[in-house]
């Protein structure tokens, strides 16, 4: 960059260019959002198909989430090493999503403990009465997950003024209320819907914005 006297127009153009360059460097590609949207949708739909069509995969499809989580951690470490800037958003986005991951892990652990205690009682009830109890614990698990899915999505949507995620978070919470009253099969379909609306579509939106921005920068640089 040469040392020269700036006119007012040149000053404004320079400010504009630099702000655009900064934005381009930290623009989110939506990779994680798309990945989680796809993973949760696949898990929910495969589980739904298992129940609907009466087959069983040799492994639990939800193990896919562990693979996705490991991939995300590895990529986050890689990105962190490469990154030369810290964004203002990082101050609240990272804690919100890390906290979300911890809460999901804790919830899974608590649910497993509940099932360990619940299943013997359930089996005993079926043996004694010959029919299933009216209360089915499984039908109350999905709303808990959907409630959690909505929280970091809402924080991201509000904090970054990103409407697709804000709408996605509201849909998660609406589905959360609905799934309290629906059966497990419907719960799975609503979980898939929530993942698509809250993560997959906003992720594609971010990717498209990122690509457009990169293209416009290339044109400016020519």
């Amino acid at each position, binding site marked *: *960059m*040469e*040392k*020269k006297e*700036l006119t*007012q*127009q*040149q*000053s*404004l153009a*320079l*400010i504009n*260019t*630099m*702000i655009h*360059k*900064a*934005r381009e*460097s*930290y623009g989110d590609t939506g990779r994680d959002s798309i990945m989680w949207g796809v993973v949760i949708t696949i898990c929910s739909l495969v589980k739904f198909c298992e129940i609907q069509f009466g087959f069983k995969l040799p492994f639990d499809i939800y193990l896919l989430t562990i693979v996705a989580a490991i991939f995300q951690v590895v990529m986050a470490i890689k990105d962190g090493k490469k990154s*030369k*800037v*810290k*964004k*203002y958003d*990082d*101050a609240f986005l990272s804690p919100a999503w890390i906290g979300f991951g911890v809460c999901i892990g804790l919830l899974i652990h608590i649910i497993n403990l509940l099932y360990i205690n619940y299943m013997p009682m359930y089996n005993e009830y079926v043996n004694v009465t010959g029919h299933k109890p009216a209360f089915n614990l499984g039908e109350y698990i999905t709303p808990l997950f959907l409630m959690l899915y909505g929280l970091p999505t809402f924080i991201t949507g509000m904090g970054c003024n990103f409407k697709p995620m804000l709408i996605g978070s509201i849909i998660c919470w609406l589905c959360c209320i609905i799934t309290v009253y629906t059966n497990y099969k419907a719960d799975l379909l609503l979980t898939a819907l929530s993942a698509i609306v809250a993560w997959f579509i906003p992720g594609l939106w971010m990717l498209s914005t990122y690509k457009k921005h990169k293209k416009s920068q290339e044109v400016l640089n020519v």
Partner: protein
Amino acid sequence: MFKALDPILHSQLRLAVVSLLISVKEAEFTYLKEKTGATAGNLSVQLGKLKDAGYIDIHKQFKDNYPLTLCKITKKGVDAFEQYVKALQTYMKPDATE
């Protein structure tokens, strides 16, 4: 009435650096060098001037055994940038020349 433009900011490289730093919380020296296209020597001198004016903070540390220089805009820098943009806007208004 024209507002005087801040001489610290009214320089191509210093203005470029402050415009970059206003958009991020913290940036590495290499990032600023890459985005502005300046030479390391020139950038160091201009960063020093911005630091002396109290517009930026420069923090030096080590990362993987390599020296790392981090730059961050200060409150004074943000205020000066805002004043600079306001002053520029007075020049751009059509009635400003009357």
